[in-house]
């Protein structure tokens, strides 16, 4: 089964909604984390299964280690350092992709979830018309998506660019996206929201800055 899976994986990682076909740094970091964790998990799984096979077929071999060695070694000494390293690494990675204001002034777009479509408002450009089903964003710039809803909970997700965030009535949640290059990326609603849930898809279109202004219908004069 494993060779089949590996073959499938190498062949079919791509896709408009694939987290394994990243188009931005947040998604790329997570994809790398995934491959590292997959490798580590495979090793740990193989170890446990090897030990199980060993003790079932040749218990005399396992008898050499005292019960305390087994339990303390396998139950504490092995997992704790691995988990600690993983946690620190993951925390640092999470911090890097938080929607903080830093030197960058992110472009802010509000994603309003309706039943059952997405409506995007370009908060930094009040004269721009809201768009439905398509989110225009500039490539090469931080974009903060502010997700809201006035009906039920929805989930905003563009897998190739970054993580998801829930759109919760009464709250505003933020996720930071960054597209490495212009392109079109698939987006979906990812929290069950009723009958139209499966059809609540959208596109995120990353443009060069000039094309971005054109797409949302504002003049590009005097802007970065």
């Amino acid at each position, binding site marked *: *089964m494993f060779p089949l*899976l590996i073959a*499938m*994986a190498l062949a079919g*990682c*791509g*896709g*408009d*909604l*694939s*987290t*394994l076909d990243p188009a931005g740094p947040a*998604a790329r970091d*997570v994809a790398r*984390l*995934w491959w590292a*964790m997959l490798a580590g*998990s495979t090793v*740990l799984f193989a170890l*446990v*299964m090897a030990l*199980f096979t060993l*003790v*079932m077929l040749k*218990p005399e071999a*396992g*008898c050499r280690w005292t*019960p305390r060695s*087994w*339990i303390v070694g*396998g*139950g504490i000494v092995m*997992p*704790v350092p691995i*988990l600690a390293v*993983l*946690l620190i690494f*993951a925390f640092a990675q*999470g911090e890097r*992709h938080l929607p903080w204001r830093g030197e960058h002034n992110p472009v802010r777009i509000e994603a309003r979830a309706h039943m059952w479509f997405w409506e995007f408002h370009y908060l930094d450009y009040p004269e721009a018309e809201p768009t439905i089903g398509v989110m225009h964003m500039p490539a090469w710039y931080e974009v903060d998506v502010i997700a809201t809803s006035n*009906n*039920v*909970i929805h*989930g905003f*997700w563009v897998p190739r660019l970054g*993580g998801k*965030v*829930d759109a*919760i*009535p009464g*709250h505003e*949640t*933020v996720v930071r996206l960054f597209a490495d290059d212009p392109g079109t990326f698939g987006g979906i609603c*990812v*929290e*069950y*929201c009723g*009958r139209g*849930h*499966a059809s609540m898809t959208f596109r995120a279109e990353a443009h060069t800055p000039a094309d971005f202004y054109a797409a949302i219908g504002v003049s590009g004069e005097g802007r970065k």
Partner: protein
Amino acid sequence: MKENPPSIALRLHRELTEAWSPKPGLGRLAAVNHSVIGLRFMVTAGVFFAIGGVLAMLIRAQLATAASPFMDEGLYAQVFTMHGTIMMFLFAIPLIEGFAIYLLPKLLGARDLAFPRLGAYGYWCYLFGGLMLLAALAAGVAPESGWFMYTPLSSGTHSPGINADVWLLGVTFVEISAVCAAVELIVSILKIRSPGMSLGRMPIFAWYMLVVGAMMLFAFPPLILGSILLELERAFDLPFFDPERGGDPLLWQHLFWLFGHPEVYIIFLPAAGVLSTLIPVFASQPLMGYRAVVVAIVSMAFLSFGLWVHHMYMVGISHLAMAFFSAASALVAVPTAIQIFAWLATLAHGRPRFTVPMLYVFGFFFVFVIGGLTGVMLAMMPFDKQAHDTHFVVAHFHYVLIGGFVFPMLAGLYYWLPHISGRFPVHHLSKPAFWLIFIGFNATFLVMHFTGLLGMPRRVHAYAADSGWEIYNLISSVGGFVMTIGFALVLIDIISQFRYGRGFRRNPWKATTLDWAMPTPPSLYNFASLPHIDCRADMMEPDRIGNELAAGRGYLGFVREGRMETLAVSMASGRLEQVVQLPNDTWLPLWTALATASFFIAMLAKLYWVLPFSVAAVVILFLLWTEKSARTSDAGPLPVGLGASAVPHTEAPNAPSWWAMLLTLAADGTLYASLLFGGLFLWTSAPGWPSAALPEISLALSVFAAAALVAAGALGVVAARHAGAAPRGMLMASATAYGLAMFFLMWMAFSGTPDRMGHALSAVCFVVLCYVAVHAALGAVFALYGAWRVHRGYVSAQRALDLRIGRLWHLYTAISGVLGLAFVRVLIALGSGGDAL
């Protein structure tokens, strides 16, 4: 002429069988014996598993192709919601309950559990609640908002039909059964053991179930509270989760996951207990690291209550707070690993045998370890930000639930089926059945990790044909059908073992626990006499002990006046303490369950005028349960065999029923704490606070109510201390004080919160005041009933159990009542933005 052992054994068997004889015919519905109730739970759970499995096959049939016309969105939503709801609430927990109810007395050297009638009542509540949900499914009005029923989708605005009410009421009905089981299991494990079995000598399975019982006691109340609040919102428009009126959808999520996370460990731990019991038998080596395992499972229990937010990484909580939950979620891998390596050490130091149960143990190791590893992955927040709500999570939880629960329980099934049926299998279906399940399961769910990472979300009935997901979904669906064939073979295997299996002499697995020290299939009374334990209960010699006990050479090797008896011991040391007189078969649990059902059905049908009658019926019926234990004179210590004597439980200070009340109050207190913290949460998190319209709760009335509660409680407490002096007057005065308190509280609740349908602040104050009022009402019931029992002569200084149980209630009501009255004032002050200070 002295009787020889075989004829003693025969005579004893006949007398015990006569005392334990069940009512025939329809009277079987009145059974309370733990073996009967346990089997009923397990068989019913098996039926629900089959139904849930069919629903799963419908899901797989739908998803096998990209845009399948098989089911539309609405029907599909009902199917996936019911699949999850049935598997989690109507299969997993009841199977555990039934299994523990059936097995624990046999492992602990007892003749029954502490509260046979409570077990029977719990079964009927489970059955009726489950039937409610199934009826809705058959009628096409099953819940359809996902098994975790997030608001506002499940609120009245967006789910106007009765579907969501069916979930809230049906599941709460089943939860009552779970809380009853938790109380019964905890008290039985702590008190109803063979003399000499200290806590440190208990079989490890008893430790697991003790921990699980405690987890159930504290985990279910938040869900029950959440369900009550949501049902109040839907039925009476009290806004707890509506952000336009000071509520917050996140309150539901916190309450649900406070339950939901411990729930999955509640499901895993008993299965781990089965493994800790079986693996030593098949290694011919007692469990290594018994103490380490006990420490590990206790720490898992505590840890599991600190992880719930990892289901909510997407809701905008601060990164630092989430880091804490991420670390805790990863940390829980450590006590899990300790158990796994304890099992490996046991096998390494033993002589492992290959049997059918061990096949399932292999299946557990393979599947659960994968599930645990993906669980650690999901605990890492950046990864979860991509994988949450995709099929990766679906794959993960099926790996841990099927690997960590279904496989060990199947191992346990094959292990204990000879015990239950008295027959050993002859056909060779078991191994092919296992491989079909194992291969089918992995085919279904291993690819699913990948499907999720390719972006396929949960709960979609169709997906784009060009998404690239179709081939993987097809593989999963084919795998699902293979797995189903495997389960069908297991069912055939079980049936054929009952019909065609061969008999065997005692103890075919060469186990070293007490459950094999009895004839198989077991008699309803388990042991002809009860053993004295002087070593760890998983290092015994069932063959030798079995013969001795059958010949009456233990405690209670006789029948006293036709009564069914077992022994109670002190909790830690296992020293003999009480003789527990077990109840006969009775229809009362069934009637009480029907009365409880009438409450839930009336709520569902919106026939609110029926509710007071239902409540009254339930209270009266529960009070009737105490009729049989009424005695008009002290019996004093009774001989129990082996030269020892013990008082009957009705005259003991630490009777099981007293502990039951204490534990029930612990659950009640957890529900109350959830309510109070919920109110504070809304103040911090919900939009629309401070509120414009404030409740007007009179300070004078609050003080009067508090004083009345304290007086009522104090009178009840003093009455219990002076039980021998026929304290009728004090109890009547207590009841009167409760009546006054109730009047004040209801006045404040209804007239003091005119805006309760307009803002959550008023709604929370209203619910808190009603909660205290309900407790005051029940306090009056306890006081009046106590006075009546005194009047009939059933109470003495020795036989003070009624009043001592009432005392616990009085203390709780007084303290929680004063706390509630203070809390309401604090919340109003906070919720006014400081104006009302």
